[in-house]
């Protein structure tokens, strides 16, 4: 097992390097990091040359990459061109807000889609099953940001007009008044609904089919035959095995959850990292963009690693296959 884990960790290092290479060269090939200064009329050509020298932009690209990589590893993520704050500090200021959003949406997604998936699989071809399939098709085709706008129209605008208890449409806490857990939860409802919709659609469908596969296995029939209650068979025998493939899917999806969070944060003015990325992208704030991309890459590789290792813990077949 230890050997397996060490090997996984060693494999993930080149992947991480590959991601930094791609992002660095893509951004470098496409953009002039000095653009934000060049457009400023009070900065002369000499100033520009001096700045380029300070930031190392006059060196060849691969040298810049190595310098940059060294700085990333040693924790010096540079300063924002815009605010001159430390990039790492800026990110860590915003990251918790994004994680609140993402973790809540994640838990909600998993609970709802497991429930829907089990229901659809155990009630195959019933009205409820078709309903779940229909919902998942709609959820999969729904543009998240528009779904958010519709929720705002219904639950914030119209509910207020009709005198019903309405939900807030923007921010994490009310502008006036004390931030409290209740307020946070109220502000979370709509963003979490939007962020979860697409994943619920996909996971419930996925779990339905993997559940159906498992329910046909001999050991499930055996469990039924020895007289166990249907709930025990489904919950304890079938579900465990049906969840294994879903686990990989869910963990590999985390990068896309970040992308979804970026849009949701924009729709609901949520002060998270995605919104910061967008705000600084508009100003071509190179170090902040690179910093956020690197951080997400690290988290993604970490998630993949956890997926692989937990997979081996859960499913002994993987572990044995790998050892041989």
């Amino acid at each position, binding site marked *: 097992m230890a050997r397996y884990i060490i090997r996984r960790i060693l494999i993930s290092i080149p*992947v991480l390097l590959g991601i930094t*290479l791609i992002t660095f060269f*893509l951004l470098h090939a496409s*953009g002039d990091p000095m653009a934000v200064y060049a457009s400023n009329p009070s900065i002369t050509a000499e100033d520009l040359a001096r700045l380029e020298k300070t930031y190392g932009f006059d060196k060849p690209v691969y040298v810049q990459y190595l310098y940059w990589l060294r700085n990333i590893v040693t924790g010096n993520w540079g300063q924002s061109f815009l605010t001159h704050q430390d990039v790492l500090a800026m990110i860590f200021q915003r990251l918790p807000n994004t994680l609140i959003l993402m973790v809540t949406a994640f838990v909600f997604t998993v609970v709802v889609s497991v429930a829907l998936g089990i229901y659809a699989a155990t009630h195959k071809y019933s009205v409820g099953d078709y309903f779940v399939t229909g919902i998942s098709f709609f959820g999969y085709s729904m543009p998240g940001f528009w779904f958010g706008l519709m929720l705002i129209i219904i639950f914030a605008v119209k509910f207020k007009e009709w005198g019903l208890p309405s939900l807030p449409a923007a921010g994490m806490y009310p502008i006036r008044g004390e931030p409290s857990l209740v307020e946070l939860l109220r502000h979370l409802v709509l963003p979490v609904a939007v962020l979860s919709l697409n994943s619920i659609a996909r996971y419930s469908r996925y779990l339905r089919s993997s559940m159906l596969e498992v329910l046909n296995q001999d050991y499930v029939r055996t469990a039924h035959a020895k007289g166990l209650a249907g709930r025990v068979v489904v919950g304890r025998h079938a579900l465990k095995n049906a969840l294994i493939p879903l686990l990989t899917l869910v963990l590999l999806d985390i*990068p896309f959850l970040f992308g979804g969070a970026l849009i949701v944060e924009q729709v609901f003015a949520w002060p998270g990292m995605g919104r910061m990325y967008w705000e600084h992208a*508009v100003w071509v704030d190179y170090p902040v963009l690179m910093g956020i991309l690197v951080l997400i890459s690290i988290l993604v590789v970490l998630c993949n690693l956890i997926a692989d290792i937990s997979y081996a813990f859960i499913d002994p077949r993987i572990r044995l296959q790998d050892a041989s």
Partner: protein
Amino acid sequence: MKEIGQVLALDRPRPPRIEKNPPGLWQLAGRRFLRHRAGVMATLALLVVVAAVTLGPLLFVPRDAAFRPDPLVINQPPSAEHWFGTDQVGRDIFARIIYGGQISLAIGLLAMVVSIVVGVLLGAVAGYFGGLADGAIMRFTDAMLSIPGIFLIIALTVFLGSTLPTIILSIGFLNWMIIARVMRALFLSLKEQDFVMAARCLGVKNVRIMWGHILPNAIAPVVVTATLTVGEAILTETAISYLGLGIQPPLPSWGNMLKNAQDLIWSAPWLAIFPGVMIFITILCINFMGDALRDALDPHMRL
């Protein structure tokens, strides 16, 4: 003496009667597709949308309605004259949806072409040649899959400017990974088949084997993925246009129409409803069509 073949033929049960003109792959697929009711309906609806955005400007939607501001009809709710209402400078929403649809659909299609070309090329090379090329390409694919595309697309549109080619290329270049994986797996298994061996023995060149012999056998998943990729590309375009980094006004796109709508959501909610309905219907139809195509092209499903 009778020939061995004839003797054996007498012992065998009669072979099933052979149709005179057995249906080919595409004919069978067409029949199966027509049986998929949701898929057929979705295709028809999609044709209506495509016809509306391509023919509409030529026949019944004047350009002025979509582009010229009219201060007399600002922010009007839907009416008989303005079916979907008007926006904050008095342009007709319906007309802008028609013109915006041209752009959104064109971007979806062109970005799909980029994705499919890149994905099929890389996947085919990795699967066919294996070894070092395979390793390098697949690690590259893994890395690309780990980067949330929307972040890179935002950065690329900011750095390169939000022009049509930039948007199409950046969406296309960041969405080829799944098709590459599928192609690799297909090429990996197909290259071991006897017909490839036969072609190789005849001295057919690698390039010709890949594109002339293997690819036609792997075309079904390409068609299905291509369909679904159009939907994904439209979703991405509308999302970045909604963020203000895609198609720039006054040019309309289904996404950037929603950006302006959010500021006015309290006073003029219809601005937010109709462009999104169009995106939603289009994507839904594309997904249904892709689903029907997948079933229709699956060789394991007989009629």
